[in-house]
């Protein structure tokens, strides 16, 4: 029995549609009161009814994600390159990088507020901190991907270290760098929403916080759906990049 194969993207889209239908059915059939769980159409109505509010908040969050994510991934990448390129550094700080991942970065938030105050810089700093570690670890790990024989080849012609770094080691590390980027991007979105909770300067996270205080799950879910859209778009973009990179190195 042969099925006509659906395109790859259609599976998650169908799953999402199915989840929304189940949600709607659950709410309608059981008569769940809207202050506990509103109907999906109610949530959509919130979004359409006040587009400026949500658009502004989404833009504010996206800017935090992009700026903080850029700073964090760039720093993480540089740390990863340094650690990957200098073996003693690898041995010295890799354990801490790994442990730092299980450390809740949220616990550093009060410190950031002391340093940067309650504003944009703190949000960006927090997002950057979230994005930094996976990128650093993945990049460092990527430096192990260059086959020994390839390094022998570069040694046999006494190739310069910088040349080998850019022309050989980084291309071999690229799939891992992208894998790190994928994790960093997702965490950057989480970081942006969290930052908006404790900085309270706007954005979707702030909107969720306000909605929670006035027990408005419809507004919360409307905001959350936009967070989801942002995260999914970024993840998808990195995924496309990753597919291209893997094709090259395989």
């Amino acid at each position: 029995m042969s099925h006509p194969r659906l395109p790859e993207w259609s599976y998650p889209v169908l799953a999402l549609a199915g989840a929304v239908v189940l949600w709607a059915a659950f709410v309608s059939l059981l008569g769940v009161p809207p202050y506990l769980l509103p109907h999906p159409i109610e949530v959509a109505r919130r979004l359409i009814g006040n587009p400026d509010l949500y658009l502004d908040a989404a833009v504010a969050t996206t800017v935090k994600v992009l700026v903080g994510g850029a700073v964090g991934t760039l720093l993480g990448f540089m740390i990863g390159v340094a650690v990957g390129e200098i073996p003693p550094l690898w041995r010295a700080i890799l354990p801490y990088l790994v442990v730092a991942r299980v450390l809740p970065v949220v616990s550093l938030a009060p410190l950031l507020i002391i340093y940067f105050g309650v504003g944009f810089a703190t949000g960006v700093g927090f997002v950057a901190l979230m994005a930094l570690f996976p990128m650093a670890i993945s990049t460092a790990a990527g430096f192990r991907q260059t086959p020994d024989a390839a390094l022998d080849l570069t040694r046999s012609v006494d190739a310069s270290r910088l040349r080998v770094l850019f022309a050989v080691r980084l291309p071999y590390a690229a799939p891992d760098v992208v894998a790190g980027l994928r994790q960093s991007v997702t965490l950057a979105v989480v970081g942006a929403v969290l930052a908006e909770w404790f900085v309270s300067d706007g954005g979707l996270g702030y909107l969720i916080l306000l909605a929670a205080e006035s027990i408005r799950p419809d507004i919360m879910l409307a905001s959350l759906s936009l967070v989801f859209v942002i995260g999914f778009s970024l993840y998808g973009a990195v995924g496309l990049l990753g597919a291209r990179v893997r094709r090259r190195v395989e």
Partner: protein
Amino acid sequence: MIEVENLTVRFDDLLALDAASLSVDDGEFVTVVGPSGCGKTTLLRSVGGLQEPTAGQVRVGGDPPETAQSAGDLGFVFQSHTLFPWKTALENVVFLRELAGREPQRERARDRLTAAGLGDAVDAYPRELSGGMCQRVAIVRAMHLGASTLLMDEPFGELDELTRYDMAASVLESWRDSNRTVLFVTHSVPEAVLLGDRVVVMADNPGRIVDRVDVSLPRPREESTMDTAAFAEQVADIRQVLRRNRTDDGSLRSDR
């Protein structure tokens, strides 16, 4: 010219190479044959400056191997082709020259690939080529580097029987036109005899040179040379030397 004097390499408790001495003249094709773990790869890597000797010394063209490396005077071909997967055959061939800080000479590289029967593969990526074709590209890459010394470490080790001798014949052909000095490591006696002016025979435990056999077969040699009685005789002689020095006690050994 390659000169190896009392070269000893020790890995922890393992004496990989025990006081090996060897001299290869300019333009000579010397093959090294021996069982796994006899130190033949270690010998080659030491000559190429990839392995630091514990004792003894190596000279390539009168200088230490590191000098030859910097001068781009060592062309390595490894058992695995070591082509970069994100570069086409042509890009791989010119890339080694670029790494060595030389002019890429793209057109020349294209001609070399075509001459090696890789005309259709010039713009193909390694994943699109067979193992034999990749190794051909790697050999062309070593030739294109312009090194006067070629060091080949079982370059046909991962290829099937038919492809091996086909490749051997094409290596001989390109060597004939180039007057390069070649040190070629293999565990196949027929391959060593077919290719070499001289065959250096090694034994293991500890890794050492046990004999140097002059190959009296006339050149040019081709695949059909392997069907002659003289060839069979030469192979039998070397097999005998190998058997005499065998210490196959079934213990595990590293290949280096």
